[in-house]
């Protein structure tokens, strides 16, 4: 299903001086459907990030389809800690000190389990610290670290809060079936094999906030309540996506 939100893939920049580890992390990330660029040093990483620093468009229109951004944006940096020259820690610092790059989440990888090293990195703003060798289960955690936010804003109704963090993607038909079992008896067709896009809702909930969005086929974007979106702290802005 070709939707602009889905095709604009989450782009990860992986930094590691080891060619074996670069190949591994690339495969791990690609297996999880991320777009990947690998570089072998911190300085090359900054170069790559710097190239796009000036290209970044700050949209002031209210409805932005990610596909409008033709340049390659980096959504996450994952870097080895121990590298000759600029270390992963140095790279982390440089990214967090940059006004244009500081919102990019950074994950550190290390073969050595040194608690002081881990806390130093987390204090400096790293999102996560993975011990090498990195596994698929680690990469699966990256879904939660997205800075791209579809700022498609339109007034919508919000839903009640739930206790635990949850992402729910369902069609209107599904949510109806959840709440009213007799819907089937009432003649709602159960053999709809494809979701109607206009029925799609995506709900993001946590203990403090519930964000409900609805898909608009004409705009090819997810829309949510403007007020609710602005309540989300900048560091937790989330990409809203649909996968089949």
């Amino acid at each position, binding site marked *: 299903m070709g939707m602009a939100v889905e095709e604009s893939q989450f782009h990860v920049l992986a930094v590691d001086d*080891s*060619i*074996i*580890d670069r*190949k*591994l992390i690339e*495969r*791990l990330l690609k*297996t999880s459907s991320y777009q990947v660029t690998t570089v072998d040093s911190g300085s090359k990483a900054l170069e790559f990030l710097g190239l796009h620093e000036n290209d970044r468009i700050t949209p002031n229109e209210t409805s932005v389809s990610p596909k409008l951004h033709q340049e390659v944006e980096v959504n996450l940096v994952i870097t080895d800690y*121990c590298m*000759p020259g600029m270390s992963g820690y140095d790279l982390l610092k440089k990214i967090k000190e940059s006004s244009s790059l500081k919102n990019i989440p950074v994950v550190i990888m290390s*073969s050595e389990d040194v608690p002081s090293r881990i806390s130093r990195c987390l204090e400096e703003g790293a999102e996560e610290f993975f011990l*090498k*060798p990195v*596994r*698929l289960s680690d990469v699966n955690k990256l879904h939660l670290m997205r800075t791209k936010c579809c700022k498609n804003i339109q007034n919508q109704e919000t839903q009640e809060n739930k206790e635990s963090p949850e992402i729910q993607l369902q069609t209107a038909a599904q949510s109806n079936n959840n709440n009213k079992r007799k819907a089937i008896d009432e003649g709602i067709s159960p053999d709809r094999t494809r979701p109607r896009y206009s029925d799609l809702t995506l709900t993001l909930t946590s203990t403090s906030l519930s964000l409900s969005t609805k898909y608009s086929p004409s705009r090819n974007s997810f829309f949510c309540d403007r007020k609710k979106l602005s309540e989300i702290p900048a560091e937790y802005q989330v990409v809203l996506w649909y996968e089949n």
Partner: protein
Amino acid sequence: MEVNQLQRTFLEYTAALFREGFLDSQFTQLYQLQDESNPKFVVEVVSLFFDDSERLINDLTRALDEPIVDFKKIDAHVHQLKGSSSSIGAHRVKNSCLPFRDFCEAQNTDGCLRCLQQVKQEYLLIKNKLEDLFQLEKQIVAAGGSTNLVEWML
């Protein structure tokens, strides 16, 4: 040799490698990343490991031959080898790097030389075994079978 027999041999050979500590679970992880779109992934990564390790072992040999030994540089090489062997599940090679780093820290040339011998030995062992394993795999595929290691290794 018929496919089932080959597959049994492959499985037994791999199981032995795990049992004897030559390989650890990271090796299984590599197979999880191999699929129809990347059917040669494991062989490719392991080839990279072979090339990289040989380079590092040569560098280590040269570095320990210097009149004034640069232990920092040697430690850096060993650290790299430890990392790459860990990344492919070459368990015994990885372990042979551990005392090596201790001797670097102690600036003990003799200790380092002994460790280098050990590393070389472990490396050659795993290289031969993995080459045998991949040869078996080729034969199985040629005979029309598949080696879905992940399913077997539970």
